[in-house]
């Protein structure tokens, strides 16, 4: 399967959006190399602003620029955006309802060897709790591009996670992203698997392996985490009675908890949450952490196999 670099996708997409949106500006806090915005800087130096290592100020300036009609795309590591600059994101962007697009790069364990201080364990949790904020975790580069495009055209605060590195592209180039709609990647009735971002491709692999075991999985990819597609979650629970969620984030207040809340309010049933089980990240490779934290295909297969065995009384 083709792989694409998230970083390159950001740069290319910004160049494309820059023509369509003359008010689009790009803001960085000394991590333009990480986000991939450098090609934009080269083509549109007058629309590119570097704030140095000052994330709070970058977000504050972004809100002011938006207040006079600009469409700022501001990026920094997901951990810094959601922690260091959180008060500015809440008040200057959210409370003021400014048209700012926040890109959280090196999301979750894709920060890899930068280690525990840089691995965002709570960015979805924090961003999801901010009124007016939309939250996205794209599954691949094609979808990232579509979500960036959606964000540029949407009036209001947006947070988008961006993973570091090259990842398999499972969407075709003519894929249509639909806001607040889960994408059904496979239908099934034994269990539902709901994934987002990094975990979706792992989910695709897991579903394939489980199919060989005779286990049919309803697999939903949930790129829009806030708001969340309630109807899809309800349907998944009605159909299977058991939802497994997997995310590159703490299991506290991320995708899994959002799914739990919808299930509890609609069709109660069992939810198993895969993700960081209330621990920080560490200095390690992505594969190592995905496996250790149980969010790779192995982790999903194991949990689902053992759950189905129990379900069947074996």
């Amino acid at each position, binding site marked *: 399967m083709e792989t694409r670099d998230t970083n390159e996708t950001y740069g290319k997409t910004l160049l494309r959006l820059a023509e369509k949106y003359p008010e689009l*500006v790009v803001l960085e806090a000394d991590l333009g190399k990480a986000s991939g915005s450098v090609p934009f800087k080269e083509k549109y130096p*007058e*629309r590119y*602003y570097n*704030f*140095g290592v*000052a994330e*709070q*100020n970058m*977000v*504050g*300036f*972004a*809100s*002011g*620029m*938006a*207040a*006079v*009609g*600009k469409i*700022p795309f501001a990026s920094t590591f997901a951990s810094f955006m959601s922690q260091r600059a959180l*008060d*500015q994101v809440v*008040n*200057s962007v959210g*409370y*003021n*309802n400014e048209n700012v697009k926040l890109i959280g790069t090196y999301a979750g364990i894709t920060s890899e060897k930068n280690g525990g201080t840089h691995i965002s364990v709570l960015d979805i949790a924090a961003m999801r709790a901010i009124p007016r904020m939309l939250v996205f975790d794209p599954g691949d580069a094609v979808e990232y591009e579509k979500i960036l495009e959606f964000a540029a055209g949407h009036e209001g605060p947006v947070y988008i996670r961006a993973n570091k590195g090259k990842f398999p592209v499972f969407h075709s180039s003519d894929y249509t992203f639909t806001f607040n709609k889960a994408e059904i990647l496979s239908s099934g009735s034994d269990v539902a698997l709901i994934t987002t971002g990094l975990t979706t491709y792992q989910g695709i692999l897991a579903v394939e392996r489980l199919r060989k075991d005779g286990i049919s999985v309803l697999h939903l990819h949930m790129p829009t985490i806030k708001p969340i597609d309630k109807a899809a979650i309800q349907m998944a629970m009605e159909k299977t009675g058991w939802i497994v969620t997997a995310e590159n984030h703490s299991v506290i207040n991320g995708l899994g908890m959002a799914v739990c809340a919808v299930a509890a309010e609609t069709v109660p049933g069992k939810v198993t949450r895969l993700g960081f089980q209330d621990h920080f990240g560490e200095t390690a490779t992505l594969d190592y952490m995905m496996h250790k934290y149980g969010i790779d295909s192995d982790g999903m297969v194991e949990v689902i196999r053992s759950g189905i065995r129990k379900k069947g009384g074996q």
Partner: protein
Amino acid sequence: MNLQEKSNELRKDTFKAMYASGGGHFGGCLSVIEILTAILYGVMDFSPSSLSDPDRDRMILSKGHAGPALYVALADLGFFEKERLGELDKNGGRLPKHIDRLKVPGVEFSTGPLGQGFSAAGGMALALKSRNSKASVYAILGDGECDEGQVWETAMAAANFNLDNFIAVVDKNNCQVDSETKDVMDLGDFPDKWRAFGWNVSECDGNDVDAVLEAISGLVALKNGRPSVLIANTVKGKGVSFMEGNYRWHSGKLSEEQYMTGLKDLEGV
């Protein structure tokens, strides 16, 4: 009515509105009056109709707790009916203590968490300058607010981006919530700090409206590629005898007797 008379009137109305609301940040609302008057009535061409002009000057009250003083000025300038001042801090009211751009016409940016209005004002100045607008952006800060690191991040960025359309005014009343600023967090050589960050610096008596107006006008005219700051030396609780210079009146509630004393002080001006 000259600008000082206007200031006196706004100060009295602010005091009345805050008493009626049950109390608030008297100290900083009363100290900032001449600064607001000079900017809104003297420097800017500020009226409800100006809001539709994308190239209008902007005033950001970064010390958002001085909302009541701004509201009194906005009502006076016709942004909303004066009766609305009775809704200050009221449940379901349309005048929240800390200024709110989505609720109050004339408020350009919602503030309260200190330092944030200053960054946002910098962003406005940057965006306006990038499209060669002639507009200026005025940000009013408290001196206690300058404890915030974000203030200095903004100061550094504004100089870096050569924002000579950006004017900060510090309402330096030397008090903050817990005590006098020198006892809580000494600002040290305050003007030199700004100079070191690359700003034009001016100082004046911040409760003399003509002096404030003259100083700001001088800074606006500079246009030398640097942002400018006016350190306006004010008196906390200005005009009310028992509040003047007393940090304990950063915020509080008034007894009826205190209210009558204050009113007498303000009417005697």
